[in-house]
């Protein structure tokens, strides 16, 4: 209850910008006592917000801490369903673990797990993902698509396209996709997507779409072994970005592409993916259980497999690390 009042209070103060809002006005709009409001203002201060209070004038917000908490995010949301139900934690092992647990307990589609810091960020095959506090976006979105498991891999390509479009729009940076779903700038990775699902043979139960984005990470804070291969939006853009604005934009874009994918199928995603891809038109090489496949990456087949021209034929690749 009180966190709900806090959310409303914060969104009201944000709405007012530099202007003061009287305690009386706040109390009327939030329908609670002025003492309750005072308590919530104290709570906000504890979290790092600076709220100026002036006799006869009221309150105004002078500083917001850099947090991705629900009360910060919700005023920015433009999506209809994605991101309205949120589990927020200041620190977790991995947002994927929490999202799986939540999904099994019946979380709705669009439910989002958000954190400031992951201590055991999870990449594919339990590879570690470096996710220091307050510098990036570490989140997991729960989806419940009515598609078959065989179609589900297309969601990872859909997510890559949706994130690329949102982040290009917000930053103006030349973001490219490396097959199937790593996001790169100038050849270095700043965003990883991990999609995990569980299902029966013909029907997906749920999908957890995990996203790790280096936003305001500075070079000094990247581990040495990652310097050559990793980057962040701030390093590439030469400025910092407001994480909550990016999250809202990503959620809106994901929702649009997801709905379009369910309605119109994979083709629109496929076309945009090829447009954004870094991989297409390049000589690539990959080790598979059938041996090495090397050749020009020419595009995606209708299922989303990468087509590599190999010894005069087109070889679809479903699962591989591309060099």
């Amino acid at each position: 209850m009180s966190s709900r009042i806090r959310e409303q209070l914060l969104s009201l103060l944000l709405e007012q910008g530099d202007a003061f809002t009287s305690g009386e006005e706040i109390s009327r709009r939030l329908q609670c006592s002025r003492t309750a409001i005072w308590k919530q203002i104290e709570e906000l201060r504890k979290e790092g917000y600076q709220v100026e209070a002036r006799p006869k004038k009221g309150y105004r917000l002078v500083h917001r801490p850099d947090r991705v908490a629900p009360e910060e995010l919700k005023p920015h949301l433009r999506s209809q369903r994605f991101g309205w139900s949120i589990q927020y934690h200041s620190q977790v092992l991995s947002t994927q673990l929490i999202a799986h647990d939540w999904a099994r307990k019946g979380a709705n589609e669009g439910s989002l797990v958000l954190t400031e810091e992951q201590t055991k960020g999870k990449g594919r095959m339990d590879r570690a993902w470096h996710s220091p506090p307050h510098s990036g976006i570490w989140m997991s979105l729960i989806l419940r698509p009515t598609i078959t498991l065989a179609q589900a891999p297309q969601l990872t390509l859909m997510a890559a396209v949706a994130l690329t479009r949102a982040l290009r729009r917000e930053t103006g940076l030349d973001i490219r996709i490396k097959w199937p779903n790593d996001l790169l700038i100038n050849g270095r990775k700043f965003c990883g997507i991990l999609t995990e699902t569980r299902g029966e043979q013909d029907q997906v139960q749920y999908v957890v779409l995990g996203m790790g984005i280096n936003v305001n990470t500075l070079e000094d804070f990247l581990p040495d072994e990652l310097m050559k291969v990793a980057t962040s939006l701030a390093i590439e853009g030469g400025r910092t970005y407001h994480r909550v604005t990016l999250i809202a934009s990503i959620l809106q874009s994901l929702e649009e592409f997801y709905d379009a994918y369910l309605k119109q199928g994979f083709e629109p995603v496929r076309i945009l993916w090829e447009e954004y891809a870094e991989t297409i038109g390049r000589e690539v090489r990959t080790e598979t259980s059938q041996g090495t496949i090397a050749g020009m990456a020419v595009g995606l087949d209708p299922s989303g497999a990468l087509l590599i021209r190999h010894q005069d034929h087109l070889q679809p690749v479903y699962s591989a690390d591309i060099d």
Partner: protein
Amino acid sequence: MKMHEIREVIRLVDESTIQEFELENDGTKVTIKKALSNAGIQVTETPTVRPEQTTHVERQAEGQAPIVQQEEPQSVPTPTASEEKEDDTDLHRIVSPMVGTFYQAPSPDSEPYVKVGDRVDEKSVVCIVEAMKLMNEIEAEVKGEIVEVLVENGQLVEYGQPLFLVKTD
């Protein structure tokens, strides 16, 4: 096979990512091959036991001309793996729901999800199949004991390919 069943199979294959599909049922073998461009579907139905059975396959979707091939009836039925290994018939097969890479464990240094002799129930995760970085946890869907692991860790598996044999309770 009934005509409407064949149509249903074609529709499912067409909507899926499968490139090639074979089904042997009641003495008839149906082979469906997709052209890479997805422009058309190729259907081959080969009677393996009853040569008198005839086929005519229509593909109704998207108004595209179907490519239908009919092979000469074979006088000798081709034995399949299951016929060769009679004792398999009582065993449940856990099959792959998609094309991808088979992983026995959640990470390279972890223990496999299951080994031969392990007990599983419907909700037990037995492996991961990965395609396009989608990690798909496969559940046993039956209760019983794992008697054979049919594929190697890291191997590419096809849609419908058996991964485990389970002796059900």
